[in-house]
């Protein structure tokens, strides 16, 4: 601001509202509030379940509540059987590892949202990315080609496969005006079956060495292709963390710069906020919809690539009946972040933290994994209410008031459109 004032007196006209009234501040507060409400409600459920269930004591309910909030810092139990908390390198490292694909699928959904599209096709794009990544990573012999190059090729293959898969709903939307949600759901299942069929036919990729691993594709580490740890294993020894999280963060920053600073990002955002105005202004809205979906697909493909190139994850290839949850979880990640690419980093980490907390509850208390899943689901669900909370904060929504409408912006007189809608409401 100070810089602007120095440049020209004209620019002083463009004042920013005070810190608390800024859109961004409100968004952050709203997300934090909804997280808090979610966790509080999760705790209530824990207590309720204990109250209704004789086999769960109130003591263990209290432990469960503490784990909902601080599970990530749980270090197990002490000699007396009480819960202990502290820095748990394994939990935090695992959290970052699991956050990696969530951040990327979250970005995938967020980018599409910004262009006015609901990318519910992230699971399919993730699967296509998985297949492409694994195929490239496992079938190029590492004796002949440097592993780093294979890694790069596999990563790119994942991104490209995701992009191609994502662009199909984009094309259908822009050419035939088919709703992208429907097209995405269709392509999800097509992807699930295609991938199963693909691995069914490629026995050389399956893990035959280990018994009990029937149905799994080899880890990429079997070909020596593994994401570098980038010294993160020194900070979080014993965990699954690797450099993927740094790559995901870097991609999030790049997406942020792309969306907010470039002409093309501006175009996409304009198409998303008002497709008609974009068209009027000479923007090729149809092309932009395809590109936006392709970018979204590429990000979901990257999520798959980083997840499986970690070298410590295996792919269960018979996916035709299930879709990867990490794809769908991109939706709450994006919602919680209000589609801001930088905020996606934090909401992605938060989601995976919940995951770890859930594991801790399952391991340390008498709550079983299903209950844990329900509690986590409630927290996720309420987190997605951040939009409503934001409207409550800025006074656009009044839940417990008498029937009254407030003009959207206080400072200016209501514009005719609002007046019209007011009149229409009187019907």
């Amino acid at each position, binding site marked *: 601001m100070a810089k602007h004032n120095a440049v*020209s007196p004209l620019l002083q006209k463009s004042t920013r509202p005070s810190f608390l009234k800024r859109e961004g501040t409100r968004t952050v507060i709203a997300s934090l509030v909804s997280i808090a409400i979610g966790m509080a409600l999760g705790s209530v459920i824990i207590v309720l379940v204990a109250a209704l269930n004789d086999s769960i004591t109130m003591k263990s309910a209290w432990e469960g509540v503490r784990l909902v909030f601080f599970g990530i810092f749980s270090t197990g139990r002490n000699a007396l059987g009480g819960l202990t908390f502290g820095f748990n390198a394994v939990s935090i490292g695992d959290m970052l590892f699991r956050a990696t694909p969530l951040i990327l699928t979250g970005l995938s959904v967020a980018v599409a949202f910004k262009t006015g599209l609901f990318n519910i096709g992230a699971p399919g794009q993730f699967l296509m990315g998985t297949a492409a990544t694994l195929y490239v990573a496992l079938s190029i012999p590492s004796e002949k080609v440097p592993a780093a190059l294979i890694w790069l090729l596999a990563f790119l293959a994942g991104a490209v496969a995701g992009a191609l898969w994502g662009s199909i709903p984009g094309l259908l939307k822009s050419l035939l005006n088919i709703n992208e949600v429907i097209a995405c759901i269709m392509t999800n299942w097509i992807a699930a079956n295609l991938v199963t069929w693909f691995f069914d036919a490629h026995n050389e990729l399956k893990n035959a060495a280990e018994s009990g691993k029937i149905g799994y594709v080899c880890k990429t580490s079997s070909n020596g292709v593994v994401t570098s740890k980038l010294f993160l294993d020194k900070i979080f020894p014993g965990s699954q963390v690797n450099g993927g999280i740094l790559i995901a963060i870097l991609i999030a920053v790049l997406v942020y710069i792309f969306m907010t600073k470039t002409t093309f990002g501006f175009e996409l955002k304009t198409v998303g906020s008002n497709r008609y*105005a974009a068209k009027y202004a000479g*923007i090729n809205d149809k092309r932009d919809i395809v590109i936006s979906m392709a970018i979204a697909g590429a990000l979901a493909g990257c999520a798959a690539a980083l997840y499986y190139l970690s070298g410590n994850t295996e792919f269960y290839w018979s996916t035709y009946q299930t879709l990867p949850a990490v794809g769908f979880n991109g939706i709450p990640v994006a919602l919680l972040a209000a589609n801001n690419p930088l905020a996606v980093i934090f909401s992605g980490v938060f989601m995976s933290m919940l995951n770890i907390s859930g594991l801790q509850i399952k391991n340390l208390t008498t709550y079983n994994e299903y209950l844990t899943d329900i509690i986590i689901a409630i927290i996720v669900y309420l987190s997605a209410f951040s939009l409503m909370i934001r409207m409550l904060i800025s006074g656009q929504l009044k839940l417990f008031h008498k029937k009254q409408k407030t003009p959207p*912006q206080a400072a*200016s007189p*209501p514009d005719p459109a609002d*007046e019209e809608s007011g009149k229409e409401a*009187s019907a």
Partner: protein
Amino acid sequence: MENDYVIEMLHITKEFPGIKANDDITLQLRRGEIHALLGENGAGKSTLMSVLFGLYQPDGGVIKKEGKEVRIKDPNDATALGIGMVHQHFKLIDVFTVLDNIILGAETTKLGFLQKKDAKKQVLALSEKYGLKVDVNAKIEDITVGMQQKVEILKMLYRKNEILIFDEPTAVLTPQEIDELMDVMRGLAREGKSILFITHKLNEIMAVADRVTVLRKGKFIGTVNTADVTKEELSTMMVGRPVQLEVEKTPAKPGKTVMKVENLCVPSRLYKHDAVKNVSFDVHAGEILCISGIDGNGQTELINGLTGLDRISGGKITLCGREITHASIRKKSDAGLAHIPEDRHKHGLVLGERLEENMVLQRFKEKRFQRCGFIKFDEVRKYADDLIERFDVRSGQGAVTTARSMSGGNQQKAIIARELDREKPLLIAVQPTRGLDVGAIENIHARLVAERDKGRAILLVSLELEEVMSLSDRILVMYEGEIVGELDPKQTTVEEMGLYMSGAKRDGKEETHHGKA
């Protein structure tokens, strides 16, 4: 009789955060009178009516029905008190018949079965009594807008409403239909109905209203007898300063042809036929050519075809010597076309984005505003601030204001600033003053005339007859997708234009010709 008030709204105050929409407003409606409510946009007319309808609860003041204080908590209360309203945009179901629409929500039933015959008898009696001739068996989609309005009026009468509110009822009518409506209103008043007539058209107030209440910026300015005031006095009350009602302009000096349109056909989006049929005309530099007509006669499609928003099914468009018939929107715009769109919220602005971003909506790819694909935000800011200053666009936070939070007039000013500053030889302005207050209209009219005098060609589409008559140098009337007449505003009258607009008259064919029943 002097104080026989059916509805009194006394000292009504309604405050929204940061704005007093109604500040101590008193409106007293006598039985059997036509009472006009006059005010610019944002004067508080809608808020006041919403209070009367129970949509808002007033912060202060009381409402009395026949001297007794009443509380109107929701629209159902208002209906129970006999208050009915004809909305600017009709609330009719297109595929239902006239009769069905009238009885909808107030059906006579016996044992749960509809008694349509009784209802029909009642409706026919009402239509006879008040001279509202409609075909009760016709479907709404098949009848004219004027007829639809009659259906809305019958709806109120069928519900035995005593207080009838007409919200900008003449906006969609031809001059002939307006006269007819005025007669109906007089008849209703004679029968003892009380009419509240919301408008900003002074001529109509002078013609039909007994008294008029004027609001300005949420404040009560006064209630006067129309017999005691002149149009000029009313407009001064409304705006707060003397207003130039006529557009001041010198005769046009048309130059070379800027755009040539030959046999243009544009398909309709909804139906199989063409919405624009074989339309040909030229627009010259230094003239304001106006396309006039009743809403929905192909004007929108014509402009969409010209600007590229809709695809064209036949014909040829030449702009500045280049053929641009099937060029993309951007190519057409680059070839020399600026466009003030009809719907500023749909096409004109991205409401969720900042004002400065809207100012460069078409230009952000120009070298001036970007380097290697990165937007130069400081340049955008500088440019927007310059436009805001030159065109007096007012907003809360200057260039960073979200477009949505600006008032309608300033949103339009922003669009006009953007389009004029692109300095294209042809400016297409579609209803550039719709929904704006008198002050803003004055400003925009003056700008358009100034641009004309600079030698720009202006193609104006307007539904406001006064605007057409005062602003244009040449008038083309569109009826059912065709241009049926070319008129000289200095020689024609509103009545003659009305005949063309309703299809009763057309150039070359002087015999009467009724399009729609």
